């Protein structure tokens, strides 16, 4: 009797860690993995306004890829993704290398490069929409400087609207990439560069042949982060171009939102969401795999 009495509080106490994690586990199983499966299942049904469970195989995926708008959105994502990632990497690396030269006022400059990251994409989009305004924005500024014929109408140009999104996205995210590279550079021993220079390498050569290879993991994480931002980009497009003119600057996330919530095409929306998930997984799985392997090798 006394034994079991002593034991009971022990068991409750030993259950506590699991009890604490229980709500999170339940929420995760239902609202992440369960919902993923739900959306996956939905993408194989005829659902339009409301979910319904008549399975039609890959019909919605067929519809999706026959849709010229989805085609545009996917193409845009590739162009946007490549430009956004390449420019952010280049700019971030360059600024980080220059900031790493024992610069006076480094803290202040870093703060300036990074502040856009604190602002929402909607604010960024609103600001750039005004700056790039076809009649009163940049165009007028340059004309006032004396270049009377200067034209800058990317925002309303079918072929150029996407690039305004690249500009705004780079402005917002490149400072963060700079911070990542700077942290990476700070972790490198100064003597490495000195040794390379004693061997007769110019500073450029030293960076190219010694420093950049060491920064490889930073490149890797930066690319994963940037491509993740690119695939999820929604707010910026919505605020800056609204996907327009027409649907010329749509990205997959905007397509998904439009079809699932404005057009009552739930099946197509679910199918597009699943394709987005596949895209993220295609980037993530190799990354996690190499990270885990790296950790194992390290220990």
């Amino acid at each position, binding site marked *: 009797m006394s034994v079991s009495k002593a034991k009971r509080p022990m068991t409750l106490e030993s259950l506590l860690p699991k009890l604490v994690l229980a709500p999170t586990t339940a929420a995760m199983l239902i609202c992440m993995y369960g919902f993923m499966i739900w959306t996956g299942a939905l993408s194989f049904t005829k659902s339009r306004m409301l979910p319904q469970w008549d399975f039609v195989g890959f019909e919605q995926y067929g519809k999706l890829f026959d849709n010229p708008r989805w085609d545009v959105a996917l193409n845009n994502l590739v162009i946007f993704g490549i430009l956004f990632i390449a420019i952010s990497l280049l700019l971030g690396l360059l600024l980080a290398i220059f900031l790493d030269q024992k610069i006076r006022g480094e803290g202040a400059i870093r703060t300036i490069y990074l502040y856009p990251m604190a602002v929402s994409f909607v604010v960024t989009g609103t600001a750039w929409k*005004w700056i790039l305004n076809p009649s009163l924005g940049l165009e007028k500024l340059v004309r006032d400087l004396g270049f009377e014929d200067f034209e800058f109408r990317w925002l309303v140009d079918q072929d150029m609207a996407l690039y305004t999104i690249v500009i705004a996205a780079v402005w917002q995210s490149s400072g963060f990439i700079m911070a990542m590279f700077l942290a990476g550079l700070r972790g490198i021993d100064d003597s490495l560069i000195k040794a390379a220079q004693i061997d007769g390498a110019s500073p450029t050569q030293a960076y190219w042949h010694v420093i950049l290879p060491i920064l490889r993991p930073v490149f890797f994480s930066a690319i994963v982060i940037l491509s993740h931002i690119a695939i999820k980009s929604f707010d910026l497009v919505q605020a800056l171009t609204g996907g327009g003119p027409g649907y010329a600057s749509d990205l997959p996330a905007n397509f998904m939102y439009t079809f699932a919530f404005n057009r009552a095409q739930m099946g197509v929306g679910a199918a597009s969401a699943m394709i987005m998930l596949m895209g993220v997984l295609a980037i993530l799985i190799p990354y996690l795999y190499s990270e885990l392997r790296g950790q194992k090798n390290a220990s």
Partner: protein
Amino acid sequence: MLANSSGMNFGRAFIYALLGLFALLYLTPLYVMLSTSFKDIEEIRSGNLLALPQDPTLYAWSKAWSSACTGSECEGLAPFFMNSVKIVVPAVLISTIIGALNGYVLSKWRFRGSEILFGALLFGCFIPFQVILLPMARLLATLGLANTVTGLVLVHVIYGVAFTTLFFRNFYVGIPTELVKAAQLDGASFFQIFRHIFLPVSIPIFTVTIIWQFTQIWNDFLFGVVYSGPGTQPITVALNNLVNTSMGGKEYNVDMAAAVIAALPTLLVYVLAGKYFVRGLTAGAVKG
């Protein structure tokens, strides 16, 4: 030698010039937003983007705050600012507290399967939310929480906990497990150990997590636009509506004042606690 040192000086001057130029470029949008917000519409039409306001006026600010149209209603951003506050405060607090306890368990009270659980949770940081939007809308409707502030708080807590857990777990891993063992021998309970050993050293990680969550949730647009209704929209959604509502002439000064109002809370946090903000960014870097 001399040529070399002057070459170095030239190089350094170039570096400073380039860094300065980029600093100006990064600052320009903020400057344009602010200067435009203090101009009247006449001056906007006649002047240019970079010109300072000749005759600064608060007209745009007062209109953006209290009378600009954000769709069918014209009450400015004030009510939506309050909506965001009502969403952000509970969502940040709840997700942070849950994250702290989760992190405590996942770092110091591991059990069979807890590492797998952590991995599964971490994976949730990466999923594109488009994949959960539709079923979540159904769940909220079933719970009677569609278009409510409570519903939005719930959504932000559920999808924020993965990050807060990650933050706390990685922080608590650094606390020696011997401390827990010793406290257990002294008869301290699960919660006593948390309160007396972990909480007192947790101030930095609480700061990082709260700032991170605050920025994320304040800046959220996707959940806001999908799960809010008229009257419960957060400020990001209202800002987007305000900019795209064209009743009468377009008032760019009001748009800009509204954008600055929407950005102000997170900018303020960044200026006051930038160090912690950057730490959160790097800790949450897996997500981006």
